[in-house]
C-alpha cells in the first residue's frame, strides 16, 4: 500500500486563531478518506492548505514524495489533485459543457497560435477535449443539458457538475468538500454509489469532508476527526466511532 499524501505537522493561523494545528496524517492510494468534525474544526481550511488556496503557516505536505507546500493552486492541480468547494464555485456564466472543458486545461497544451490557426494538433486536441467533456457529462447525467449555463442548474445538479469538473482534471486525488450537503436521503445514497463508482473507474483516491455521519461511516475506508484545528483521531469507521475523544468532541459540540 502506497502512501500518496503525507501531511506533517500542518499549521495555519489566522491572527491568533489556530485554524489548523499540528495536523499529521497520511492518505493511502485508492482509499476513501473521510474528514469529519464539528463546525469550525478546520476541515475546509485543511482542504485549502492541501490545494494551495491558503498558504500554510508551518509544516509540510507532500504528494508521492514531492513537496506541495508553497506551490500555487494551479501547480497543485496540475499534479493531479482536484477538488470541489463547500459553497459551490462553478463558472456560473459558462455552460455545463464549458465548465468541464475548462478543467481539462492542464491536460492540454494548445496556445493562442494553435487556437487561432486551428493547427492539426490543436484541432485534434479540441476534439479530445470535446469528447471527454461529453463523456463526463453523461457520467454525471447532465449530457442533455450541456449547453445551459451553470447558474441555471439546481443545487444537486450543480454539485454533480462540480464533481464532473474536478474529474476533468484527470486527478489521482479528489477532494470533495461536503458533496452531500443539501441532498435528500435518496440522493445521498446515489451519491455514495457514484463516488464508489468513480473511484473504481478513474483509479482515484478520495478525500471527503462530510457532516452526515452515516454516509461517512458507510462510504469511507478510514476517517480522521478534527476538533478545534487538531486531529483527535484517525482510523477505520468502527475504531473512530468508539474513540472516547471523538465521542466527547461531538457530544460537547452538539
Amino acid at each position, binding site marked *: 500500500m502506497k502512501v500518496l499524501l503525507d501531511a506533517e505537522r500542518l499549521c495555519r493561523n489566522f491572527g491568533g486563531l489556530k485554524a489548523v494545528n499540528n495536523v499529521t496524517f497520511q492518505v493511502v492510494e485508492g482509499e476513501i478518506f473521510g474528514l469529519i468534525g464539528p463546525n469550525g474544526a478546520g476541515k*475546509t481550511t485543511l482542504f*485549502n492548505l492541501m490545494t494551495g*488556496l*491558503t498558504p500554510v503557516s508551518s509544516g509540510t505536505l507532500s504528494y508521492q514524495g514531492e513537496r506541495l507546500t508553497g506551490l500555487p493552486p494551479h501547480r497543485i492541480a496540475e499534479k493531479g489533485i482536484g477538488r470541489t*468547494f463547500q459553497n459551490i464555485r462553478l463558472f456560473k456564466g459558462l455552460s455545463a459543457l464549458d465548465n468541464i472543458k475548462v478543467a481539462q486545461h492542464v491536460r492540454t497544451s494548445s496556445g493562442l497560435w494553435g487556437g487561432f490557426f486551428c493547427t492539426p494538433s490543436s484541432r485534434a486536441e479540441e476534439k479530445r477535449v470535446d469528447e471527454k467533456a461529453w463523456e463526463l457529462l453523461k457520467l454525471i447525467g447532465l449530457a442533455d443539458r450541456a449547453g445551459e449555463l451553470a447558474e441555471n442548474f439546481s443545487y444537486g445538479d450543480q454539485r454533480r457538475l462540480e464533481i464532473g469538473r474536478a474529474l476533468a482534471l484527470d486527478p489521482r486525488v479528489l477532494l470533495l468538500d461536503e458533496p452531500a450537503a443539501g441532498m435528500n436521503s435518496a440522493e445521498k445514497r446515489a451519491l455514495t454509489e457514484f463516488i464508489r463508482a468513480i473511484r473504481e473507474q478513474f483509479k482515484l483516491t478520495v478525500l471527503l469532508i462530510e457532516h452526515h455521519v452515516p454516509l461517512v461511516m458507510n462510504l469511507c475506508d478510514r476517517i480522521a476527526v478534527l476538533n478545534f484545528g487538531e486531529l483527535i483521531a484517525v482510523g477505520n469507521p468502527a475504531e473512530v466511532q468508539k474513540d472516547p475523544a471523538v465521542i466527547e468532541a461531538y457530544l460537547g459540540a452538539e
Partner: protein
Amino acid sequence: MTLAQFLQNLLNGISIGSVYAIFALGYTLVFSILGIINFAHGAVFTLGAYFTYTLAVGQFGINGLLSGLNLDLKVPFALSLLIGAILAGLVGVLLERLAFKPLRTRGADSLLALVSSLGVALVIVNAIQYLVGAEIYTFPSQVYGDIKPAMMFEVSGQPVVIRTVQVIIFAVCMVILSILGYLISFTRLGKALQAVAENPTTASLLGISVDKIILATFFMSGFLGGLAGTLVGTSFGIAGPYFGVTYGLKGLAVIVLGGLGSIPGAVMGGIVIGLAEAFVPPDYSAYKEAVAFAFLFIVLLVRPQGLLGRTHIQKV
C-alpha cells in the same frame, strides 16, 4: 532648498491639499456606501462654482443661451457659497435617482454605473456651456470683503508669502471637515451611514432606511464637491465648464492614496498629494501633473488598500 522655500511649499501644499481633501471626500463617501466611483463628481464640482457665481455675481458673458443676462442678485458671498453647495448637493441627489438607482435596483453590473455617471458628466458640462458659454467667469476680488490680498514675511532674508485666499480656503475646509467629522462620528445619521457602509443588508435589518442613507450620502457628496468648486473658483476663477475635469481625475488619486472609502484617508491623501505637488522642484514642474498619478500607481502596487484602508479577506 532654503527654509523660506520650504515654508512656502508647505503653505501652498496644505492649502491646495485641503481643497483636494474636501473634493475627494465626496468621492469617497459614495464609494464607501455603494462601492462605485461617481465619475460625475468633477462635473458637480464645476456646477457648484457656477451656482455660487450666479447667486453672488450673476452677470453672464457673451456666449450661450443666457448671454447678456444680468441677474445681479448680489447675495452675500458666504450665503451664496452655502446655497451653491446645497444646490450642488441636490444635483447629487438627482444624479443618484436618475443615473444610479435604476441600475442598483436592477442589480446591473456595477461597471455600468461608471458609464452612466460619465453620461451625466457629459450632460452637465455641455449644458453649462449651452447656457453660459465656455468663457472664464471670476468672482470680484472683494468677494471676501475688504482685506489685504496677501501677507509677506521674511525668513532668513527670503520672502514667504501667504495669500489671504489660501488662508480662507484652508479655514473653510477645516470647518467643513470638523462638521463632517462630528456628523459621522456622533450623530444617528453618521452611525447609520457607517452601518450601511459596513453591510447594507444588516443595516436594513436594523431598521435603517438604506435608500435614505444613500440619498443623504449623495447630498453630502454633492455638497462637498460644489463647495470645493466654489473655493477653487474664488481663488483662480471658473475656467470654463471643463475646469472640474482635472480635479475629478486627481481626486481619484487622492482617494486611492488614502484608501478607497476611508474618510480620514481622503483628507490625508488630499494633503499628501497637495504637498507632493508643491514640493516638485521648479525644473521638473512639467511633470507635476503626473505626480498624483505616480503616487497612485506606486501606492496601488505596494499597498493596494491605501494608506488608511483596510484589507478585505476573501472567504473561500
